[in-house]
């Protein structure tokens, strides 16, 4: 198990638990009462820790090394999944994966950012940072969905689109912009889930949908707290403050009307019980798709335009003129 800094009290308790279990095994003594006590204590401690997470702690949990990624969820929730590769222009991006599969009997196109599960794979997946061909593959799959009337499910988990020379040469900005434009007008339902990190345009590039949801221990904003700190505070040391200032938690995003709902995670985060999280996600997707598949294309498109059209907060010059404090 990997413990984050604010989870240290738990680490000690789990260590104790391990020791007692060992004693029980070796000495054939009945320790069940002690174990029960300790497990109770762990649950209580967990409830306290996770009830009051700061923005930065949610960011840390969203990046937990044992957190499930897109391919894990796909494997758990899809039947007959076939991964589809390549953008047909340049390459197959490893940081965005997708394909066709069935969720609760409904054929759909499902895709998402993919991070690596170990050092070697993290490199291979480019840390979940897609190049233009990733966004173009995503668009190709969405167009495939549109042609056959299948819904699209997008799982978002990226620290951002890759900032590299080749990415710029191949039009990172154009690829993301084109996806936003095409997703706004796609004739089939699109549901999006932030399952980890939702950083900036790289997240939004597969994140414009009829409905958008976030898991409990995730974040979504225009920039990562670290980069925000380095630009606005001119130092890397203010990430905690930046995370608070950005109001990037699911609770804030719900309050702003930018997401529809928050998916509860198992106590301690999706990493503590990935199977349970996958079951929660599957039943949620199933419910969403059955509702959205009933809506006509034109209504989906006009609904999407309305959903995004109203996002924004501003004052009016006249009203400010009248108020005189």
């Amino acid at each position, binding site marked *: 198990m990997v413990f984050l800094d604010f989870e240290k009290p738990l680490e000690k308790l789990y260590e104790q638990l391990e020791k007692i279990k060992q004693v029980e095994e070796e000495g054939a003594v009945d320790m069940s009462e002690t174990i029960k006590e300790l497990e109770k204590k762990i649950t209580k401690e967990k409830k306290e820790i996770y009830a009051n997470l700061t923005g930065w702690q949610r960011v840390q949990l969203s990046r937990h090394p044992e957190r499930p990624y897109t391919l894990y969820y796909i494997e758990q929730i899809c039947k007959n999944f076939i991964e589809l590769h390549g953008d047909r222009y340049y390459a197959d991006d490893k940081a965005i994966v997708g394909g066709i599969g069935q969720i609760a009997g409904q054929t759909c196109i499902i895709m998402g950012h993919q991070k690596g599960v170990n050092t070697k794979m993290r490199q291979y997946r480019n840390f979940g940072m897609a190049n233009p061909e990733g966004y173009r593959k995503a668009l190709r799959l969405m167009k495939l969905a549109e042609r056959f009337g299948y819904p699209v499910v997008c799982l978002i988990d990226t620290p951002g689109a890759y900032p590299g020379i080749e990415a710029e040469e191949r*039009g*990172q*900005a154009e690829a*993301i912009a084109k996806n936003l434009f095409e997703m706004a007008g796609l004739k089939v339902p699109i549901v999006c889930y932030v399952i980890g990190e939702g950083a900036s345009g790289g997240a939004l590039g597969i994140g414009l949908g009829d409905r958008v949801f976030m898991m409990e221990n995730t974040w979504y904003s*225009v920039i990562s707290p670290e980069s925000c700190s380095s630009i606005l505070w001119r130092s890397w040391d203010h990430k905690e403050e930046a995370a608070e200032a950005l109001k990037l938690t699911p609770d804030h995003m719900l309050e702003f009307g930018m997401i529809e709902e928050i998916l509860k995670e198992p106590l301690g985060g999706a990493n503590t019980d990935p199977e349970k999280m996958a079951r929660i996600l599957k039943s949620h997707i199933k419910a969403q798709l059955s509702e959205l598949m009933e809506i006509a294309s034109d209504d989906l498109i006009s609904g999407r335009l309305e959903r995004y059209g109203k996002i924004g907060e501003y004052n*009016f010059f006249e009203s400010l003129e009248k108020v005189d404090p």
Partner: protein
Amino acid sequence: MGWFKRLKDGIQTATKNKKEAPDGLWNKCKSCAEMTTMKELRENFFICPKCDYHSRIGSNDYFEMIFDGKYTELFDNLLAKDMLKFSDLKSYEDRLSVAYKKFGEIDAMKVAEGKVGRKPLVIAAMDFSFIGGSMGSVVGEKIARACDYCIENKIPLMIISKSGGARMMEAAYSLMQMAKTSAKLAALARAGVPYFSFMTDPTTGGVTASYAMLGDINFSEPGALIGFAGPRVIKETIKRDLPEGFQRSEFLLDHGFLDFIVHRSNLKERIDEMLTLFKMEEKVS
């Protein structure tokens, strides 16, 4: 003085003091250091007579350069709102009031309707001097309203981008303007209204990755920095120097992301030509 009072004073300064640099003032070229008087520079489309450097200019300069005489500003009553109570080393409120006072603009975008070669056009132009031309809710809403207006009146839209990207102080609101403006431009496209995207120095970040790259025609001024990630970020990521001319207009043209580059002295003429070619049907009245 409370922030509100300062804000109000600043806005009034912004709207009253449309200060123009006096003709006799000398300007030093940012590229070759040549000294030119403001009068000379203005008469030369703010282009350095020696090295052809296109200096950064504001929305009003473009409106005056492009429209036939008079034009009407639209949606000019929208003001930024600090809904997140954002504060870093400075508060967003303070940044706004400083910007109002210092730069004489009330946000990073102005929209105006006028005629070019007697053909109607709506131009939404960005002002880099206002918090780095950053895109917040006001910029997004102005583009949204401009799209609705152009659909309603069947008038082509042109956006002049000049931006460092997202307005971080509006966090997720800023990010979502990318989705909002793209969705609105998709509606504009469905309505058959032409959209010309003109990129000027600099056009980066979320602005490039949304409306700037979505033109029916994408074009730019010479030598403009255009990209998704800023050169500094890329350099830090890859830990090596960037090639000469990287992310400049000519580089983008070469890589297939621009239709053409236009010299500022030919800008009006080129727009006139495009409006002739992409003629909207006359409104029956």
